[in-house]
């Protein structure tokens, strides 16, 4: 299923964009930086063409996708959680080629401040787009009565939390995100630049729980998994 979205649905939050540039939410932001933010979001609105593709996948089939080329960490959250899933869907989402070009152009022409603001805004919008695809999948499951009331959905991506980036190859072979213009490089990186892919896991909320005690957790300082689990419990 291919989904098109309007930019207003993925407009980045100002605090989040400024946060990516190390500007805390309590900061007294100077006018010239707010003006940069306004210009960046305007450029993003003009360049972004947000699209996503979703495809249901059976647990056994996903086991094969997830196995990838055998480079995953021995234990991973996705590996522990997906066998308990009620439903799974592969997804890919992109802001399109033009946004990446605008960022590159900004750096090439030495508009470093604007380019980095645009990059931060685009990253936020790409995340918002993936979130929107996730919500859309959850809504469909609920409308069809395929999810328990206490169930929830969370997404995971190759490259993070022990799921090796080479896992993209089988994910792409199954999902075919080329349909919305996303391709994979030899090193398994996605083009356009601002694209997100992965699996959406629908399961009872309790089935999503895990402790961050995997080998790779020791080196991680982002703790995003904790925020995501907290948000899931609060839904």
């Amino acid at each position, binding site marked *: 299923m291919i989904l098109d979205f309007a930019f207003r649905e993925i407009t980045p939050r100002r605090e989040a964009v400024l946060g990516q*540039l*190390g*500007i805390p939410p309590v*900061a007294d*932001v*100077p006018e*010239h*930086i707010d003006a*940069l933010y306004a210009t960046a979001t305007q450029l993003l609105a003009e360049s972004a063409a947000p699209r996503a593709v979703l495809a249901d996948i059976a647990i056994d089939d996903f086991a094969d996708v997830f196995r990838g080329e055998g480079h995953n960490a021995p234990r991973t959250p996705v590996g522990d959680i997906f066998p308990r899933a009620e439903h799974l869907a592969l997804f890919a989402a992109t802001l399109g080629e033009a946004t990446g070009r605008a960022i590159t152009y900004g*750096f090439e022409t*030495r*508009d*470093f*401040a604007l380019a*980095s*603001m645009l*990059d*931060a805004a685009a990253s936020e919008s790409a995340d918002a787009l993936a979130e929107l695809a996730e919500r859309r999948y959850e809504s469909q499951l609920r409308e069809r009565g395929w999810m328990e009331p206490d169930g929830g959905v969370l997404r995971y991506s*190759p*490259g*993070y*939390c*022990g*799921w*090796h*980036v080479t896992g993209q190859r089988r994910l792409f072979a199954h999902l075919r995100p080329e349909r919305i213009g996303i391709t994979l*490089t030899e*090193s*398994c*990186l*996605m083009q356009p*630049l601002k694209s997100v892919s992965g699996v959406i896991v629908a399961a009872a909320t309790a089935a999503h729980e895990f402790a961050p005690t995997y080998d*790779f957790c020791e*080196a*991680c*300082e*982002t703790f995003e998994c904790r925020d995501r689990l907290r948000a899931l419990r609060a839904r």
Partner: protein
Amino acid sequence: MDRLTAIANAVIAGRHTEAAELTQRVIDQGIAPQTILDDGLIAGMNVVGERFRVHEIFLPDVLLAAKAMYAGMDLLKPLLEAGGVTSRGKIVIGTVRGDLHDIGKNLVGIMLRGAGFDVIDLGHDVAPERMVETARTEGATVIGMSALLTTTMPVMQEVVDLLRDARLTGTIKTLVGGAPVTKTYAREIGADAFGFDAANAVDVVKQLCGVR
């Protein structure tokens, strides 16, 4: 106001047109290019770096200043090269193989150039062999590596190992950074240094290169 201080102030304020005009004026007045660079442009960037470090200004201010610094450098660079003036050091930077997140690496490059270093930016998804070979052939003193994915962090170790195998440890030093990278991880893989943000990376490179 001193003419070089005026250049520094233009850099600090991020006024790139003014920085270029003032730089051209002092070139025309016969001031040595190295003096203009050190006491005008770099002096301005040093103030910017310090203000950023103590949270007086934000990253976009640093980038506006860098643009002003570059505007002046464009005029000075041919003169410095013609005069045989060497840079403060040559640095190879890149985002490691399998990773395309290069905004942090770009910022480090911008700020290193702003601090007077020669920077060879290999871009993203860079193989360890290419980093080491480029540093060796170009005579670089530091390789700066960035990773955002936890699954690509081990590539940094490969670079450190390749340098050791080629007996280049110590000659070419390694600096690592990126959101999931920590000082502990840098130590574990045998990297020479860790930079927690772009401004800090510049300080660390200065230390590694033994310049002020």
